């Protein structure tokens, strides 16, 4: 378990995550209706979309937590949902996830949280792991909080610890589930800064699910906009800024009315009230 059998080559620009014709159906609801997406090494892709657009479902499918009804997810060239358990384990060590609330293990200290992937997936000695934990915590600015329990730190700090843990194995790919949610602008800015510096300094590829436009424009190389289970717009950050596409404009400017409706009912209002 210490050295990989084959050293994966890292070509900049290669497609490391591909979503092909992805369909997800829950009961009688089609949440994803044929999504196609490619993420290249070294880029930061921002996935935008309103509530109910399917962006959380897309994220869950990409990280292997949800099985699609149709289509496939190719992670580092392997079909994530057809691979064997051992293969999936290997793949999972190559990417990290920052969950919305940090998802720290509440029975362990901050330091133990960050150490866990190292203890489980490497043969490193305990004192080396201790050093690496300090390095990861230093990266997110929380080196002094190593011995505290998650219940003793704030929401923003939990997210930063979550990021440190996601970085423990030096992953090539990182997923962020609404990293700015519930954070004050300063802490949100800190996280954005981290995302960008990870990309610049370590060549980490990032897929960020968010709907905070300010943050999105700060960090994105490319963006996709999801609506009703489909990608309705795709392009560089600059493309989006200049776009005249009504979907894009409505989302970027936060307009309450436009092609993305606030109210969607199967029955008309009048009929529903008076029948």
């Amino acid at each position, binding site marked *: *378990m210490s050295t990989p059998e084959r050293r994966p080559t890292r070509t900049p620009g290669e497609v490391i995550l591909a979503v092909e014709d992805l369909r997800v159906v829950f009961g009688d609801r089609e949440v994803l209706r044929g999504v196609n997406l490619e993420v290249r090494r070294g880029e930061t892709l921002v996935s935008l979309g309103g509530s109910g657009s399917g962006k959380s479902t897309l994220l869950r499918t990409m*990280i*292997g*937590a949800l099985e699609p009804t149709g289509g496939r997810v190719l992670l580092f060239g392997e079909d994530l949902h057809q691979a064997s358990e*051992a293969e*999936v*384990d*290997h793949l*999972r*060590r190559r990417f990290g*996830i920052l*969950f*919305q*609330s940090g*998802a*720290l*293990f*509440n029975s362990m200290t901050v330091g133990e949280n960050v150490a*866990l*992937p190292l203890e*489980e*997936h490497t043969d490193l000695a305990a004192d080396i792991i201790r050093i690496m934990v300090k390095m990861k915590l230093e990266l997110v600015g929380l080196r002094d909080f190593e011995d505290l329990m998650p219940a003793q730190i704030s929401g923003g700090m939990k997210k930063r610890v979550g990021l440190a843990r996601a970085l423990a194995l030096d992953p090539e790919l990182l997923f962020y589930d609404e990293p700015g949610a519930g954070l004050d602008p300063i802490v949100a800015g800190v996280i954005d800064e981290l995302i960008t510096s990870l990309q610049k300094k370590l060549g980490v590829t990032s897929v960020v699910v968010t709907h905070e436009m300010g943050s999105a424009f700060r960090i994105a190389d490319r963006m996709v906009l999801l609506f009703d289970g489909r990608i309705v717009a795709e392009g560089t950050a600059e493309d989006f800024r200049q776009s005249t596409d009504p979907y894009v404009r409505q989302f970027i400017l936060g307009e309450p009315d436009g092609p993305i409706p606030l109210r969607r009912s199967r029955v008309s209002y009048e009929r529903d009230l008076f029948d």
Partner: protein
Amino acid sequence: MSTILVQSGRRLIDLFAYLGGMASLLYDSLWWVTIGPFRRRGAIRRRESVFQAYRLGVASLGINALVIFFVGMILTFQSAYVLETFGVVEYVADMMSIAMFREMGPLITAMVMTGFGGAAIAAEIGTMVVSEEVLALETGALHPVRFLVVPRLLAAMYVMPIIYVVASYLGVLGGFTVAWAFLDIEPIRYFHRTTESLIARDVIAGVLKAEAFGVLITLIACHEGLRVTGGAEGVGRATTNSVVRSIVAIIVCDLIFTAIFYFL
């Protein structure tokens, strides 16, 4: 009439699905205790198991002791009530030892454990599901069964026989208190009869029951916890389900074991 059939049919299918889920969980747990470590996919988390055993055993011992002591006293009174009419009050000692070690020991221990162990485990794991901790484990290639279920299962298997033996003795002691204080049975006679009537088979039967009950409680609790959907309400439901289903499972299992041991 057909609706009743449809309903019962559905219930039966749900039951089989539930049992299937439990069997699957048991299989996975056993895999992680035997083949998993062998294939270097991940070691048993020993420290965590010991920690869980401590929580389970130490937390429940006090209440267990109290309840079973009282049960011992109650049973002795009730038995004496009947035995008096045959003039053989001192047989109370025999009855108590056998009843405690064969039945009341495992059963009362299991019932208390359902609250302390079962409910707590279901609530804890359920909360972890809601807060995405379990998802974080899973997507970090840290298998939830290995991390959460196996330590608790091993803990229950270590702890149940110990608590059972301690509890059974305390139950007998409760009986002794009543026998001495209210039934005018000499202490020496009581203990003599107790040790005479108790045979190894009784204790083995009790230990096997206690182990089985422990496994049932833990598996049901973990299963309920891992299946939680829908936030705090879901966790509450899982906790309640865990207790109720454990009680039913324990009683059914108890009947089966008791019948088997009767004929063996």
